[in-house]
């Protein structure tokens, strides 16, 4: 495994935002993730790829503590978050989208995004019920921020539509906008291009780069669409059966025989 020893990135002097050490997840006898290590720098855009069942989404689920790690340690901005509850971790500044879109079906596009501001709401229930000035201010702020986020991803004309009535590609964008509403520092995107046509995918690439710039985000993206991964990611980690088989820049990964073997089976050099 040559590629695992990556060349020192120029980003190395930057602060580490997420550190995962020897993270392992076992479901009974199945090892979903084995000894996963990550040192993610602030502002980085990392791609996580691998065949189906490689453990990519499991890593996201471990970071946000959808289920606990079996072994290992996860640190976010220098703080151990391994045992924190999901909602706490999100409030610290990690947001995610889902592989199978999870929008709130009974709500409109606008309400979906507005909901995400609740985690950071300062007013208590009483001020909300009595509509006191402090709550009014927060509600107004939520409204204007929601509007901005909808514009950012280009769905402001659909504000009052039922979220689930949107076409697939726009639902994905709405999910990204909703994730941004939690004011994250680290954004985890789980197959954002799934179900998108080539034009939409191009747009998505631009959107991801734009929001990284604008919201000063660090992003990890899981994707099968290589047009996304190879074009926008600075660093790629390849997983297979829970094991990290390669790590490096897009160019390095494309040439790596181990990766090609994992994706195509036999060592076909021309692939």
């Amino acid at each position, binding site marked *: 495994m040559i590629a695992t020893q990556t060349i020192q990135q120029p980003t190395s002097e930057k602060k580490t935002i997420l550190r995962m050490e020897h993270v392992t997840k076992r479901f009974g006898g199945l090892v979903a993730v084995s000894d996963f290590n990550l040192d993610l720098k602030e502002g980085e855009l990392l791609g996580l790829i691998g065949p189906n069942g490689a453990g990519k989404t499991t890593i996201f689920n471990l970071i*946000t503590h*959808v289920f606990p790690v079996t072994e290992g340690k996860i640190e976010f901005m220098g703080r151990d978050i391994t045992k924190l509850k*999901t*909602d*706490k971790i*999100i*409030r610290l500044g990690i*947001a*995610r989208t*889902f592989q199978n879109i*999870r*929008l*709130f*079906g*009974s*709500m409109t596009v606008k*309400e979906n995004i*507005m*909901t*995400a*501001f*609740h*985690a*950071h*709401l300062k*007013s208590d*229930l009483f001020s*909300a*019920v*009595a*509509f006191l000035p402090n*709550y009014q201010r*927060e*509600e107004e702020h*939520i409204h204007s921020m929601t509007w901005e986020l909808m514009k950012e991803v280009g769905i402001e004309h659909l504000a009052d539509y039922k979220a689930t009535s949107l076409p697939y590609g726009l639902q994905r964008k709405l999910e990204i906008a*909703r*994730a941004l*509403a*939690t004011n994250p520092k680290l954004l985890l995107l789980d197959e954002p291009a799934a179900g998108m046509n080539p034009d939409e995918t191009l747009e998505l690439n631009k959107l991801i780069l734009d929001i990284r710039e604008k919201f000063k985000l660090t992003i990890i993206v899981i994707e099968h669409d290589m047009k996304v991964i190879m074009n926008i990611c600075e660093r790629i980690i390849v997983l297979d059966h829970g094991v990290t088989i390669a790590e490096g820049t897009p160019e390095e990964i494309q040439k790596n025989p181990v990766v090609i073997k994992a994706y195509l089976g036999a060592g076909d050099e021309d692939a």
Partner: protein
Amino acid sequence: MKRSTRVLLSILFIILIYVFVFFAEKYMDPFIKRILNTGFIYVILAVSLNLINGFTGQFSLGHAGFMAIGAYTSALLYMSPESKMSNFFMEPLISPLDRIQIPFFWAIIVGGLMAALAGFIVGAPSLRVRGDYLAIVTYGFSEIIRSLFNNLQNITNGPLGLKGLPTYTNLWWTVSWAIITVIVVRRIVDSSYGRALKSIRDDEVAAENLGINLFKHKVLAFVIGAFFAGVAGGLLGSLLMTIDPNSFSILFTYQIITIILLGGLGNITGSVVVAIGFAFLMEALRFVEMPMKIFGITIPGILGMRMLIFSILLMITILFFRKGLFGEREFTWEGFVRLFTKRKVNQQ
């Protein structure tokens, strides 16, 4: 429409209701008044259960239990010491309850708070389970309360119940509490907290991954719902003048669930309209429980036939109006005004 206009219209509407209450209390037939009182108590129950079942999506069957706690707590506080003495002839009421008497208003509040406390104690451990399991746990709680109240002879007077409660409940009380319930629940639902509750109903995983503390918000809905159930229990006790543990059985919860399903889960307007309609229909349908003659065959009166009719109504609703009679349409002043402007256009 501006918010201030809406608030003004709501205030005018509430004043109108109170004008009605004023005349109703003076001139209305006591029988109709009683049905109206029951109707408004159903409003409190339905709207508060809707907060838990409809908006937060936590299927609770514990409402009768919370009512029982509210009814007993308040009754033991507003009854006169003499009345208590005559009630508790098997075993005396424990001190200091036998000497205390506080005004009706505060007794109702304390009843509600006790129910809310029970809601917290039950909700905290049981809201970790979902769906059918939560229904079973809350049903179990309701039965435990009933059984407990049947056996706590020196607090609840056991199966004998409490008799001769003073009738404080009138339309002023029931209407005021119904209005408070509707306003509080509507305000919660329309606020950021309401969005959080609805997000939990729609998708727990997504809600949690937006940083919403599931447990805290579920308990919140549960406690507020229980508080109003306790208040309704207190009002009902003073209206019926007699309470016993078995009147707060699971059947009562089913009635409220029927109301919120007919009105539409998560629809306050539906709950209010159906609750009042339900109270009237319960009386109107009394004839089906009488002995009757159909085509020369005499059918003896069967108790509980009314509920059969409601079950049929419920089934029809579920078959043809899957989201209840009102669906997702809530009453808004904008919609109300539109109703009139549209008519004007038609007339021209």
